[in-house]
């Protein structure tokens, strides 16, 4: 089975955040990739078994209002700390852009059948395609 890429995980987390209305504590959620990368890269030696519980704690405890996106962000393997930081920045900025666009779309009045979740889904799809090059950085 092919593992999920960091970019796909981030965009999935953004979708869960925006569609599930889980914007609370996105700062905490954004910490998850950094913790996951640190835990994976730390020379723990025989204490390597600590990685999973630490990540699980970070995923479930601080972002109590947003465990689902945090969990998604903990799944991929981040190659380095800068890659994890980029994933965190991408998550926060994508949620912010999706919110801005959501408001713009609502202001302009889309057709009734496209209001709400369909319009948000379309915005997320466009953001996915637009930000795809970031996944190659």
């Amino acid at each position, binding site marked *: 089975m092919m593992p999920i890429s960091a970019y796909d995980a981030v965009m999935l987390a953004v979708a869960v955040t925006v569609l599930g209305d889980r914007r609370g504590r996105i700062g905490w959620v954004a910490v998850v990739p950094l913790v996951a990368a640190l835990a994976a890269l730390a020379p723990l030696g025989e204490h390597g078994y600590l990685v999973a519980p630490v990540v699980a704690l970070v995923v479930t405890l601080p972002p109590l209002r947003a465990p689902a996106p945090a969990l998604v962000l903990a799944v991929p393997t981040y190659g380095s700390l800068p890659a994890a930081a980029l994933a965190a920045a991408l998550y926060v900025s994508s949620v912010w852009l999706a919110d801005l666009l959501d408001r713009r779309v609502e202001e302009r009045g889309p057709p009734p059948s496209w209001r709400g979740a369909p319009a948000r889904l379309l915005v997320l799809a466009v*953001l996915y395609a637009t930000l795809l090059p970031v996944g190659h950085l």
Partner: protein
Amino acid sequence: MKGPFLRSPQSTRGLMVQVVVAASPALFAAVVRLGAPAAAAILSAVAGAVAVEATLKHRSVADGSAVVTGAIVALLLPADAPPWLAAIAGALAIGLGKAPWGGLGKNPFNPAALSRAVLMVALPAHFFAPAWRWDAVTAASPLSKEIGATAPSWTALVVGDAPGCLGQAAPWAVVAGGLLLVALRTIDWRVPLAYLSAIAAIALVLPGGARVTGHAPWLVGDPMLHLFGGGTLVAAFFLLTDPATAPMSQGGRIAFAWIAAIATMAIRNFTPYPDGAALAVLLANACAPWLDRVTIERRTQLGTSSRARRGRREWRVPWGRQREVSDGARPSGGTRSSRPTGS
């Protein structure tokens, strides 16, 4: 300042005619240089756009916006795009880029750029190494970072001999059409100027990533290649100037063009994508609501001086409490004199 109660003397249809006339030299030059396949691609793109528009919203076909969208979509297509790809591109531009958002003027993303981005994700083989098939010669785009790509001369870039999209067949024709739009005041001249100057400046200073230094070192330090290569000129004159997807203020539009330029160059220099112009336009479109908020909404609350900024923080308290502090009336529009003396 125009309000919603003021009507522009120019009709939507008139604007669309101007854009089609401006795009015509580039389309005509592409047909002359590339022959029947280019003509088929252009007609297919326009037909796809008009067909979907007619199906979803038949009344708005008459305003000509679908024809404009189809024509601009065609300029962004690879030079060897088959008619079916062009038809899908035109249909996607209207079906995804315009209709779901409520129609003309309500779309937050440029339909042509959106169509290209979706097809780049769905059918990357057609977009990652666009090539000419003219005069029995096939070559990779100088922006493609692939084996087989070569550095073109400046003459080849300006004349349109460098491989790439249909809009690259005659860059001078795209510039001529863009200048016509500027002369007619259909578009804001600041946007293409800010975008193109930023591209040139960034090209001079931005180092190349590993994908560039190992495969296409000519992409670094050559502003001409970035100005005339890929969809830069089409983006500058036809995509970024779309009033529905650009910010409303002049300052916002300049920042919008800079964002697009930075994104274009970052994509070209650090990712495997051959041409980031359409994606950069979409990213700038996504930032437009924020730019509107920064440049218009805040300015209409209060001025931009440091005193006004301090005042703005003060106005964030609930009105009732402000009245107690100021013992005055609610501020009425943001002039400095409207600030309560006691605050």
